[in-house]
């Protein structure tokens, strides 16, 4: 499942939004009920492929994120599967109540696509860096929440959500990020899965077993951290949890038996995101040591992705420090 070129000279990069664009064309080819709406960012959110192939099923709505949610709800009531897209800061940022009432409470299969999420969007600065969107969507009943780790997973999730009747949120990033999954990766109905397991070079036992659970492209930093920690005799298992809601609790209950502590990693506020979801569940069902990596109640700012990852403590180095801190 892991791409052979990962961490090699041949490593490939592609933005998750690109994967979404491909997935939408594929979904639209397979199902005529798939329609797409965009709020004046068609190329940016990669709906241009769908627009070119299915011009009659594409609707440019201008900068009307609130009305766009309503249009999509009405379309869904007519039996269609609408995808609505903008930057995550504006949808679901600006149109949260419309999504709550007319999409989630109505329980219609509208797919909300939040592009350019996270601080990694970079130079645009805090106004355009959605780092609260997982929380916003996770707390709405009926809504399902997905965060793909790379373009391959983004494509697979896009194709999948086009086949369900659930209101869904898909979070995308702007920047090109490493492809981590192989081309034959298949979406497994939202189940969490192992990305990396530490193997002792000499066949001996590790002193510690730590689980890192992450979502989104930032999982690349977690994989790097895991490899470094292995050299220190700390066994790290890196888990990808692309479906934030519903949470794969069956996996968590099995997994926690094998690890001493859990570190969560996400490019989102620590409040309300993946780490919160896991901490909420485990504190009630299997209390244990948990540390969360994410944005610490701050706004973003302009900068390059790597500078911002450094400033907001999202790099492999910070993950390593966090893991060391939980075993001390």
């Amino acid at each position, binding site marked *: 499942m892991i791409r052979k070129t990962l961490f090699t000279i041949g490593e490939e990069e592609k933005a998750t939004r690109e994967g979404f664009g491909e997935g939408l064309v594929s979904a639209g080819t397979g199902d005529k009920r798939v329609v797409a709406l965009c709020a004046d960012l068609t190329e940016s959110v990669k709906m241009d492929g769908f627009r070119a192939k299915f011009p009659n099923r594409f609707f440019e*709505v201008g900068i009307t994120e609130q009305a766009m949610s309503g249009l999509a709800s*009405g*379309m869904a009531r*007519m039996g269609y599967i609408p995808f609505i897209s903008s930057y995550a800061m504006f949808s679901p940022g600006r149109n949260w109540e419309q999504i709550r009432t007319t999409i989630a409470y109505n329980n219609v299969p509208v797919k909300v696509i939040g592009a350019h999420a996270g601080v990694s969007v970079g130079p645009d600065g805090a106004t355009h860096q959605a780092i609260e969107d997982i929380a916003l969507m996770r707390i709405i009943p009926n809504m399902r929440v997905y965060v793909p780790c790379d373009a391959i997973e983004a494509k697979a999730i896009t194709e999948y959500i086009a086949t369900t009747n659930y209101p869904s949120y898909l979070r995308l990033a702007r920047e090109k990020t490493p492809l981590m999954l192989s081309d034959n990766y298949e979406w497994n109905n939202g189940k969490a899965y192992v990305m990396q397991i530490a193997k002792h070079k000499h066949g001996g036992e590790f002193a510690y077993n730590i689980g890192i659970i992450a979502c989104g492209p930032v999982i690349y930093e977690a994989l790097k951290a895991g490899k470094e920690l292995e050299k220190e005799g700390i066994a790290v298992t890196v888990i990808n949890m692309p479906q934030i809601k519903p949470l794969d609790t069956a996996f968590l209950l099995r997994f926690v038996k094998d690890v001493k502590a859990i570190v969560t990693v996400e490019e989102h506020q620590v409040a309300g995101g993946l780490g919160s979801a896991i901490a909420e569940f485990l504190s009630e069902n299997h209390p244990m040591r948990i540390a969360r990596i994410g944005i610490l109640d701050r706004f973003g700012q302009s900068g390059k992705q790597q500078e911002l990852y450094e400033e907001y403590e999202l790099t492999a180095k910070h993950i390593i420090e966090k893991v060391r801190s939980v075993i001390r």
Partner: protein
Amino acid sequence: MHSLTDVEVQALTLRAEDIRESIIKMLVEAGSGHTAGPLGMADVFTALYFRILRHNPRHPEWVERDRVILSNGHIAPVLYATMAHAGYFSVSELKSLRKFGSRLQGHPHREALPGIETSSGPLGCGLSQAIGMALMDKMEGHKPDRYFYCCMSDGEIDEGQTWESLLLLNKFKLHKVIPIIDRNTIQIDGYTEDVLPLESLKDKFESFNFHVIEIDGHDFRDIVRAVGVAKSSIDKPTIIIAHTIPGKGVTAFEGDFRWHGKAPSLEEGRAALKELRSLRGKVSLD
């Protein structure tokens, strides 16, 4: 659609009075809810459900039906009462309004009650949904022949989403969307022109490139004729501004914005019913 005969007008008038009585009874029973808007829109809803709509109360999801999208969900009592009298469910169920476990939620909930096209309450949301429905209808070649009536309040025109939707309605030229605006001039904090002036509403809509018809929202002939004109105006969408009297039918409630968001007490309800029933005697069939 031919113009209404006197007999037809009288039948609709009696029907609207039954609906107003139901509204009063259900609000008294609920102990909370909105009074002015539902009474004011009773004639428009009666005209829709008993004259204008292509619908089947026994098959609420009939694919060929016309849609009524209630945008200002707080006037739910008039929607519920009209639907009950039209046969969607039993009139006795109206007593359950706003009660625990009821299908008649304080604001309409699509999944609770068949025949409700959308959940609404937060204002400004309905027109965009009607547009989304009509866009799909257009994509399907306007077959079958369906119309999308969006009942809106004047107060909710304050909402930014309403104006986004008007821009989109003009862009997509969806003449099968027929917004009917309840121009009763009141909202919770007072008269609309004091709270946030809307006038000239007609000029605003015309400048957005719509055909605008202003009607007396209590005149069945006016209501039915306006819908007929809207249907025949296929070059651009038509907006119907229905001038209504909030609290219509009960002197104590009429025109008073304080009745926007409260329910009558038992005493006030009794007096209101007495007045409504005595009005019935004034309408004769000769």
